[in-house]
């Protein structure tokens, strides 16, 4: 069990897009040093959940607290690594310029801190083995390299949490392995929250899983290692497991049924 204090706390959060409920009465505590994979079907509200946590969206009801503050005020605590978008491939921008973007803040004008920020950006890039690409233009990097740049950008505020939205999109298999190793290393000091579209390949280093489909069901580390073969989604009536969570050393990780979870955890 992870008994660390909650870093991010969602209480009875509901959110609707144009009167269509996306998330309903969501309760979730993200504790320090956790490594959560957020999984669920498309349109189930994974990205919405992430946008609520970083303060891009405001919940219709309920509350979200990040280290005792609103998500907007606590934005420096969370390092956000957005989903890779390809419509900006031709944008003329170098790696270090993107990383420096991470230091932007409404109060201090970046202008005055430029030298300090650049130094910091170079250090972070060095830590990510990207120092040879500092002046390279972003469009000529591979998917995995670009993802590292976005992580470097997120690290500019010295965050406590790293929030990644589908980080392995467009990265080849070997790149993904490397990428998960990187995240594992970060998890020693950082809390990691990762939305994953690819339910087949969740890193074995993931400590807990949150299933999002209008509601959020949180599965602890201890629970994941059990091998109760049951459906992950309550509305899937078939007996066989619709989704396999494949990981090294553990051929078939299956989560407990959500009903069971809510009985025990009294999440509702």
């Amino acid at each position, binding site marked *: 069990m992870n008994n660390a204090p909650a870093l991010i706390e969602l209480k009875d959060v509901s959110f609707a897009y144009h009167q269509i409920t996306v998330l309903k009465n969501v309760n979730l505590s993200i504790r320090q040093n956790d490594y959560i994979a957020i999984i669920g079907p498309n349109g189930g509200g994974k990205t919405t959940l992430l946008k609520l946590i970083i303060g891009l969206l405001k919940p219709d009801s309920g509350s979200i607290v990040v280290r005792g503050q609103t998500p907007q005020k606590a934005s420096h605590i969370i390092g956000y690594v957005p989903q890779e978008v390809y419509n900006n491939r*031709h944008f003329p921008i170098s790696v270090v310029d993107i990383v420096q973007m991470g230091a932007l803040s409404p109060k201090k004008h970046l202008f005055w801190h430029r030298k300090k920020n650049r130094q910091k950006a170079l250090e972070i890039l060095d830590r990510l083995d990207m120092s040879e690409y500092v002046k390279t233009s972003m469009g000529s990097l591979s998917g995995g390299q670009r993802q590292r740049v976005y992580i470097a950008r997120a690290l500019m505020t010295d965050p406590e949490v790293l929030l990644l939205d589908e980080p392995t999109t467009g990265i080849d298999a070997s790149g993904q392995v490397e990428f998960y190793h990187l995240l594992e290393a970060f998890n020693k000091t950082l809390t990691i929250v990762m939305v994953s579209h690819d339910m087949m390949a969740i890193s074995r280093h993931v400590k807990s899983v949150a299933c999002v489909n209008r509601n959020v069901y949180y599965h602890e580390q201890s629970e994941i290692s059990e091998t109760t073969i049951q459906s992950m989604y309550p509305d899937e009536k078939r007996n066989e497991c619709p989704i396999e969570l494949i990981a090294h050393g553990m051929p078939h990780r299956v989560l407990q049924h959500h009903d069971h979870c809510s009985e025990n955890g009294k999440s509702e």
Partner: protein
Amino acid sequence: MIEALQYDFMQHALIAGLIASIICGIMGTLAIVNRLVFLSGGIAHAAYGGIGLSIFMGWPFLMGTIGFSITAAILMAIIALNNKERSDAIIGVIWASGMACGIVLVDLTPGYQVDLMSYLFGNILTVPKTDLIVMGGIACVIFMFISLFYDNILAISYDEEFARVRGVYVKSLYFSMIILLAVTIVLVIQVVGLILVIALLTIPAYIMEQYAKSLFQMMIGSIFLGCLFSIVGLFFAFEFNISASASIILVASSAFFINIGFFRR
């Protein structure tokens, strides 16, 4: 060309062309990377409503047109922001209705309107000195805006969502950008006319995007290219006695197509 510069009107034309190139280089770069080219077309054509209004009310051209264009631009930006999927249709509607307003207002104005054509196709050879001063002033404002907010503008242009997470005032910067774009377009309408303004705004920036390593380089390069096109265009106009605005645009578009051919290989 040198002998041509003995004439006052040629000197003014050259200065107007160069200032237009400078502001187009900066704002055209922003229009391209923020995908505001269609909106710019909308502003340019809706500006005709402002021209009509100025003629009808007897206001000076710049004041009435800039006011009208800024209003139309903000309107388009607000509606487009709230209805992203159909923003092109909405911009198209305002584009056309702005022009229609202009035509009707000119119809309603008694007397014959001689220089209407000059707004459609521009008349760089008749730009008065006061307008040059206004253009220079606006160029300074744009310079200041860019140098103060370069990092923020870069962030919202590249990744608006991330900029918002980092607490950048995305909306106010976006609307400032739209307002400056509208002012730029009105000023450049005088040089090349509302039909051709989009070319001077986008061609230099589009060519430079392929070679630039940063947004700043793209702006500087676009300014340089724009100035080159204006000078060469004016030279051809003087040598062959052809319309100056069309000559500038033809030089620019030739460069554009040569560049495409060059880039393919």
